[in-house]
């Protein structure tokens, strides 16, 4: 039993570290973890709210960019600003980075740039969602095997 737990913990540690190394997560995600005590689902809950927010905001951006005729870039920009804020709060580093570029394209009214960013943001939040799901599953497996989820030290 212990060997299984140890192996799962190792897998979990490696997986988590890789998410940081790939620039998918940043320090803010570490802060979220610090705010969660054993037994609460805070991290999962706040990320869930974040993903719902992504769907809503990306929908707004897509609708605003889909206007045949003139596109109101300020409307697109307003949603990008909100997405930048929430991705920053949860440590979604890549999504946040894309929003910075996206905002610049909104400000310069660059249509192609905006459409490209929209596609990338969509891919990126879905990627994050999948990877975090894998991470949460590993946590569950560790607990089910009778072990504790290790604190992963990124540095």
């Amino acid at each position, binding site marked *: 039993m212990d060997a299984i737990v140890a192996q799962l913990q190792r897998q979990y540690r490696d997986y988590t570290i890789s998410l940081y190394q790939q620039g998918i997560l940043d320090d*803010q995600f570490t*802060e*979220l973890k*610090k*705010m969660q*005590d054993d037994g609460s689902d*805070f991290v999962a*809950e*706040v990320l869930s*709210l*974040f993903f*719902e*927010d992504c769907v809503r905001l990306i929908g707004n951006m897509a609708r605003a960019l889909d206007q045949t005729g003139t596109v109101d870039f300020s409307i697109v920009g307003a949603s990008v*600003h*909100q997405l*930048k*804020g*929430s991705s*920053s*709060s*949860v440590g979604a580093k890549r999504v946040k980075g894309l929003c910075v570029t996206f905002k610049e394209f909104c400000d310069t009214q660059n249509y192609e740039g905006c459409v490209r960013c929209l596609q990338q943001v969509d891919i990126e939040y879905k990627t994050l969602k999948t990877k975090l799901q894998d991470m949460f599953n590993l946590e569950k497996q560790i607990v089910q095997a009778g072990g504790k989820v290790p604190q992963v030290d990124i540095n």
Partner: protein
Amino acid sequence: MAEVMLPEKLEISNDTSSLASPELLHVLAVDDSIVDRKFIERLLRVSSCKVTVVDSATRALQYLGLDGENNTVGFEDLKINLIMTDYSMPGMTGYELLKKIKESSAFREIPVVIMSSENILPRIDRCLEEGAEDFLLKPVKLADVKRLRDSLMKAEEKAFNNIIMHKRELEVNDVYSQLKRAKI
């Protein structure tokens, strides 16, 4: 011989934690982002604060009773120790909320902290000039809240000590008058 009443010995401790129960710091948090509301609520709860979160400046004013609807009913019970508000919100901004709070006689003493994802110096200056206690860059950290709590607790301790000192003075004067009357 007249009985002289001596004041009880007052212990003034330097330990802030003995001052008030840590849970008593009641924070009103204002943010239009659902993710940030969840985040700040948790951040404050794990920092031993009582939290009320609202999603707009208008709702914050309603909660405080400053919206012109319900002016003097039941506010004495409403004890808010700190207001933390996002700067950029649709409708009324955090800055406008700050101004309204500072204009109110009931709430102007409450420290107001502005949070923003943008590090814009003129914005920061404007808020501080309008009386903001602090300006925090988002995302807010546990360390930021701890620092705020510590400085607020220190300010409360100072005020508390001043009250105790004054009370002590009054009691000493009272004993003195009693002694005089008893001609001791």
